[in-house]
């Protein structure tokens, strides 16, 4: 296994797919010679040229829609939206166009579009640069949504997204950009299936479902729960928000009987709510305690570091909430 940082895994995935298929193009603000704010597209312009790696004006509505038009006519565009918050500037091409064109046109087209963006908080970026909006898109038929938490998953899921014949929104996390992890060796064509969760830590006492940045926090919390309270938590990284792998969660809850979901997005109508709904529908009798959602308060993400630290869930909060609310009988 090689070791790569998150942004390097991202870059490798894109480079491999561009080399593999000449129909793959990259569009977005600063994706060209500059290589991007996080060095995520560094070297691609030099290797594949300006025709396929194209800087755009700051016009998300326009260039995402253009990418939809290109996807309908034979290209496989990969589009960068720098910050996840800016997805709000291209809701029409994503929700009304990309998601529906195949359906509306009776299957006459495919829309193999990949939109990737950097979201989540933890870098003091304030209310308009810290959001986690994945659940919005998980409510739209026709779209797929993934949120990888490790360099390996970034490599595997991003490559699968680019190869998928459907529009896929890839939610990367700013805070994870510099994190390192093991990945398959260069030269190995590594992909991961969209729509499958993975168990990151096994345990039979409580099931913790986590998304993106919260996976690491959940794993740290699980170790603390084991050491301090003798509670063995199973940690599941959902990886794909749509389609959602409820089966992996349900199988775990059937053993543990206790469920906590932790994500940076707000609780109402979120992925946590959906996970609880699926478990309630399909494994109601397995629950031994009310399910628990661990999320930020229903407020925008604050700028002040001291406030943002209090706002975002972390390992200590996950540990104490589970110990306090789900430990009966353990």
């Amino acid at each position, binding site marked *: 296994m090689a070791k790569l940082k998150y942004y390097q895994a991202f870059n490798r995935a894109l480079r491999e797919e561009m080399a*593999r*298929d000449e*129909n793959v*193009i990259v569009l977005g603000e600063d994706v060209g010679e500059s290589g991007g704010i996080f060095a995520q597209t560094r070297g691609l312009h030099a290797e594949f040229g300006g*025709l*396929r790696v*194209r800087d*755009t*004006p700051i*016009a998300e*509505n*326009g*260039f995402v*829609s*253009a*990418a*939809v*038009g*290109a*996807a*309908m*006519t*034979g*290209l*496989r*565009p990969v589009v960068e939206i720098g910050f996840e918050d800016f997805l709000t500037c291209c809701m*029409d*091409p994503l929700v*009304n*166009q990309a998601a529906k*064109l*195949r*359906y*509306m*046109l*009776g*299957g*006459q*087209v*495919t829309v*193999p579009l990949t939109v990737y963006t950097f979201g989540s908080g933890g870098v003091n970026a304030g209310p308009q640069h810290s959001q986690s909006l994945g659940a919005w898109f998980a409510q739209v*038929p*026709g779209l*797929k949504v993934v949120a990888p938490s490790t360099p390996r998953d970034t490599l595997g899921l991003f490559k*699968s997204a680019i*190869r*998928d*014949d*459907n529009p896929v929104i890839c939610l990367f996390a700013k805070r994870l950009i510099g994190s390192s992890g093991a990945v398959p060796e260069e030269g190995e064509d590594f992909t991961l299936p969209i729509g499958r969760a993975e168990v990151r830590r096994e345990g039979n006492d409580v099931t913790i479902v986590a998304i993106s940045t919260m996976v690491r926090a959940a794993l740290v919390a699980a170790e603390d729960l084991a050491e301090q309270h003798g509670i063995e938590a199973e940690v599941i990284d959902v990886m794909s928000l749509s389609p959602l792998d409820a089966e992996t969660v349900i199988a775990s809850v059937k053993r543990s009987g206790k469920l906590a979901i932790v994500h940076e997005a707000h609780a109402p109508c979120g992925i946590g709510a959906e996970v609880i709904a699926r478990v309630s529908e399909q494994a109601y009798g397995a629950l031994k305690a009310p399910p628990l959602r661990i999320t930020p308060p229903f407020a925008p993400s604050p700028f002040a570091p001291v406030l943002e630290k209090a706002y975002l869930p972390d390992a200590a909060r996950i540990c104490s909430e589970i110990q306090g609310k789900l430990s009966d009988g353990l």
Partner: protein
Amino acid sequence: MSKLTVEAARTMHRNMCRIRYFEEAASAKYKDGDLPGFIHLSIGQEACAAGVCATLKASDYITSTHRGHGHCLAKGGDAKRMMAELFAKQAGYSQGRGGSMHIADVSVGMLGANGIVGQSMPLGVGAALTAQVKDSGAVAVAFFGEGASGAGVAHEAMNMAALWRLPLVFFCEVNRYAELSPYETHVPLANVADRAPAYDMPGVTIDGGDAVAVFETMTEAVVRARGGQGPTLLEAKTYRWHGHYEGDPQRYKPEGETEAEMARDPICRLETVLNGSFGVDKAAIETVHRKEKAVIAAAVAFAEEADDPTPDGLTANVYAEGVGV
């Protein structure tokens, strides 16, 4: 100016008649309660669709608006499958999933009517981007109306197309009303095409009721696009004889305006040219009308007899299966 041939003039005339009879049939069937939903008709605007598409190849692309029946027919769409879609039947182009507002035949380069005003422009940018990246030689035409010209995405699309010198023509059909609002209430300039210099591209305003003018101006824009010289903004001043939607009482139109425009019927104007410049006699012109009426009557009969879609297909084509590469 590029010269119009008799073949091209006849093609335009046939398509204009086909569009007229298609739209009239749709209007009548809508009035009878046979067509669900909303329909937006292009009667009076036929010279635009027919003139533009007569300059294109089957491998070229068009993107269209909510008022897209004429564009689809002129690009080579099948009247039967279109009418079946308006009737919400399984035999329709979209198996009854899209309806009038999403009429499309991708096999002839018609990428779809679209229900979101303005989006035909960046979608057209995308089709032109494909042509440029693949070096296919194709061009794209983005139809839009003056109502879309005030949308932010119109600027974004024209800016990108000019910046990247894409093989694209922006074709604005100014039919005088954006939904229920007259041109003057939402466009500050006399001509939409006057905006073209801001994007460093040519802008031309023409009489959209004159099929010959549409054909000749479009021909030059297409040559320019195909030659790698970038996009053009064409504006055709036309007129919508019917309302924004069928059933629209059109109280916003001044008295006598529609009648005055109907007296300048674009089909009659092209017939004058066919007869005067190309020697096509009245009998030949009448034959076209008779044939196209029959084409549309057959389309209506086909649509009326076609089966309804069945609910077991409610989730069909939401996702493409598997991966494409």
